[in-house]
């Protein structure tokens, strides 16, 4: 058995084990040991000196194929049951369509569908595996402490932790399956498992809201799954092949329609407009689920597929449509994030926006664009995971995840506020990771189509606004406060500290990250092409990084001799900076609130625009597929 199949199987088996053995103590040791094993496995895979390997079927010819077939049928039946139970005929329709298609396809061509190389390991899948193994593993560790506290605080929800942890690990296993699959049938199998797991995890609380949101996620992802199934059949009938690498190596004209359908599946899974609503609804689930869906798995599976397809898409009508979907999503997601004060929602919109940027790169598909896309995937996974996990802890302590309630967090939860700031800096600030990638995207776009750069120009401006005003809220302090940073478990701290270090390390060792993982893949894809952001710019970035890192040092001066006074309130201050005597002797309290542009933009209005623009583009995409029949 090779390392890749080990990485797929171990979390799946651990998932089954966690479901069967329900003791909390046993769960803790199992989660921690499996996570360590998986993380070590991915690191070992990364250290192995090879560029690209295709692997045959690891366990005998038909055994795995048959097993997958029956599991798929079981999943189909379960989803049918769900559609009947919740009276959603659309779900039944989608699952019958794709299930029927796949059953017909696999029974008709069963003997020929054996892929010569079912697994594929290259630098891109290794990057994805590292993210999945390390970031995803940290989320599982964090969830140990988090879920205990969650169940203590929310007695109204049934304690289903065994199922919860079991699903987390199955999710990780399926994600490994996606990034290592070369056979499209395997890819599709794991793809459907992530759809099912996300449905079950989003609906964890089993109240009406979470069930509705889970069903919405299911519908949208099944629509993508249907596209995937049609793409497989189409590709096979056209070329007689079933392998991803064959698809990518084919002439674009020959396989453009199936590639367009796969890109459509990627767009649904990565929650691009018009399908963004499912990811926003997903935040009703406990925080580890949001972190998992947003950073290491699920949405990353979507962009992984789109970026994989880039060689086929590049320069075609489909490629431009996909790029436009990403570009619109980036702008609309960024502006929508301005309009809400719900911390998790802001993070969700920012995820949608950044995935848009990655999809944009995938659609363009040039050397620089793919380079930027891969880096974006890495930086986004680490920083976004850190932010979600921080917000989860803050929510437990403050009993609110409203950004306005995080005022003065720098005093009340100093370590967490620092981590939040690291995560935010990682998301948008020079010289941190995401900004380097955004810069690379801009350079990639300018050479291909300067017109697309306008999306990045406007989107980045909005990004700036919503992050800085949140940061400002964290550091602003009115009146005396006390620390409430107590009773946070060791597993949470472990995950948070590691992720902070990773966010930081990814910036510091970014040249290494680029030359060891990203460049080999991209130069392999575009033979002979080299060169991106020049080395002189690296040096300047490092100088900037050092300058920013020096900032905390200025706090050594904290106790220097200064005269501390109350803030000016435009009236006579009473005792503190938070109360004053206004005109006519009225005593008033002072409050500081951020701008959310509810009249100027309005979340619903922005969102509606995104759905319409994205919907139009996706309609064009599907119309293109239809007319190439």
């Amino acid at each position, binding site marked *: 058995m090779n390392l890749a199949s080990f990485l797929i199987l171990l979390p799946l088996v651990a998932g089954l084990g966690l479901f069967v053995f329900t003791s909390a103590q046993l769960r803790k040791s199992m989660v921690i040991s499996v996570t360590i094993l998986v993380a070590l496995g991915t690191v070992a895979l990364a250290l192995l000196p090879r560029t690209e390997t295709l692997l045959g079927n690891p366990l005998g010819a038909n055994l795995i194929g048959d097993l997958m077939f029956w599991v798929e049928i079981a999943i189909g039946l379960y989803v049918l049951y769900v559609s009947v139970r919740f009276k959603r005929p659309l779900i039944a329709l989608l699952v019958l369509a794709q299930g029927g298609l796949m059953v017909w396809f696999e029974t008709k061509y069963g003997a020929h569908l054996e892929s010569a190389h079912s697994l594929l390991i290259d630098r891109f899948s290794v990057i994805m595996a590292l993210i999945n193994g390390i970031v995803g593993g940290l989320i599982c560790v964090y969830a140990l402490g988090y879920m205990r506290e969650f169940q203590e605080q929310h007695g109204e929800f049934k304690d289903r932790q065994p199922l919860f942890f079991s699903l987390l690990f199955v999710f990780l296993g399926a994600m490994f399956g996606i990034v290592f699959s070369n056979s499209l049938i395997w890819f599709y199998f794991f793809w459907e498992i992530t759809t099912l797991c996300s449905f079950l995890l989003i609906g964890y609380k089993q109240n009406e809201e979470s069930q509705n949101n889970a069903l919405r996620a299911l519908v949208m992802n099944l629509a993508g799954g249907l596209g995937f199934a049609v793409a497989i059949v189409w590709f096979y009938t056209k070329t007689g092949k079933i392998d991803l690498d064959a698809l990518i190596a084919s002439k674009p004209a020959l396989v453009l329609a199936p590639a367009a359908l796969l890109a459509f599946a990627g767009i649904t899974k990565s929650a691009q407009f018009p399908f963004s609503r499912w990811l926003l609804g997903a935040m009703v689930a406990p925080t580890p689920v949001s972190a998992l869906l947003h950073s290491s798995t699920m949405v990353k599976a979507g962009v992984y597929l789109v970026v994989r397809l880039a060689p086929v898409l590049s320069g075609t009508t489909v490629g431009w449509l996909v790029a436009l979907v990403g570009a619109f999503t980036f702008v609309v997601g960024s502006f929508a994030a301005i309009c809400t004060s719900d911390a998790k929602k802001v993070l969700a919109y920012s995820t949608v926006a950044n995935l848009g940027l990655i999809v944009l790169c995938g659609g363009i598909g040039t050397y620089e664009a793919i380079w930027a896309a891969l880096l974006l995937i890495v930086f986004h996974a680490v920083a976004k995971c850190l932010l979600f996990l921080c917000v989860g802890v803050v929510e437990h302590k403050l009993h609110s995840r409203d950004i306005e309630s995080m005022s003065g967090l720098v005093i009340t939860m100093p370590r967490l506020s620092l981590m939040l700031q690291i995560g935010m800096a990682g998301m948008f*600030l*020079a*010289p941190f990771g995401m*900004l380097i990638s955004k*810069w690379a995207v*801009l*350079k990639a776009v*300018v050479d291909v*189509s*300067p*017109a697309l*750069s*306008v999306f990045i*120009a*406007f989107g*980045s*401006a*909005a990004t*700036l*606004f919503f992050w*800085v*005003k949140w*940061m*400002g*809220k964290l*550091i*602003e*302090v*009115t009146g005396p406060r006390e620390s409430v940073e107590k009773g946070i478990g060791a597993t949470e701290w472990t995950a948070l500290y590691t992720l902070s270090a990773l966010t930081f390390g990814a910036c510091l060792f970014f040249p290494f990250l680029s030359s060891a993982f990203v460049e080999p893949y991209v130069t392999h894809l575009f033979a002979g092409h080299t060169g991106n952001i*020049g080395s002189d*710019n690296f040096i*300047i*970035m490092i*100088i*900037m990084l050092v*300058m*920013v890192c020096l*900032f905390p040092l*200025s*706090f050594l*001066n*904290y*106790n*220097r*001799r*200064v*005269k*501390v*006074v*109350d*803030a*000016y*309130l*435009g009236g006579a201050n009473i005792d503190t*900076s938070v109360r004053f005597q206004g005109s006519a002797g009225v005593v008033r309290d*002072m409050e*500081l609130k*951020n*701008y959310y542009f509810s009249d*100027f933009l309005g979340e619903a209005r922005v969102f509606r625009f995104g759905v319409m623009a994205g919907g139009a583009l996706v309609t064009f995409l599907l119309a293109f597929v239809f007319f190439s029949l």
Partner: protein
Amino acid sequence: MNQWIRLIIYLLAAPVAGCLLSGLDRRISARMQSRQGPPILQPLYDVLKLWQKEDVVVRRSQDFYIFFFLMLIIFTGGLFFAGSDLLLVIFALTLAAIFFVLGAYKASSPYSFIGAERELIQMMAYEPMVILAAIGMYMVTKDFHVAAIASHRSLLILQLPGVFLGFLYALEIKFRKSPFDLSCSHHAHQELVRGITTEFSGKTLAMIEIAHWYENVFLLGWVYLFFGALPALGLFAAFAVFVFVILVDNSFARLKWQVALKSSWAVAAVLGFGNILVLSWLR
């Protein structure tokens, strides 16, 4: 000229030039308002006096942010005059501005808080146009490096008239001049007391002033780039833009932030983006 020499000249000469320009600004404004006006060196006297004042703060760490604002503004201008990548210059400028805004947030006073918020809105208003200006210059010169753009043979303004006008609009915001002096006004006529700088005094306020000197020289340097092929014309244009900004400052009332945001986005989309579209069609 060697990039290091240019850098050193910038570091030494920019505050002098910035100070004189600031003095000239006050003098010209005064004449426009039929006043005598202060001596040209008045900004220097102000800064020297501020430097001797007692340190007064609301929150102990608020001044640290301003110190880094100053450092990063100098760094930004340094990158620019050393001929570095224009996009990197923009990112450094943004980083600097964010430190300024965070300092105002840190001060936790309602006036500086709203000032900070409005400063962010202003940043959001000018940022797209500034990025589009860099992209326009790249499309003409095929290079993002300031050194290469400045020594480009053709006159950039001839191909980038829309981008230039849009950039001028962004400059009005960047100079924090009326009609866009939303976050803090140089004149004592606004409801925000002193906006973003309300709670800064003494040395820290002096640092903000010095940062603006550096910043203004850097911005006028960018105006020069549009005329880089003819240096004399470039210097004249930079000065003309400076006088134009003062004229606008004295002839317009302040706009609401909504209008500022909408109009500057419209300008960026129509003039900036339109110019870029035309250029990419012509190729």
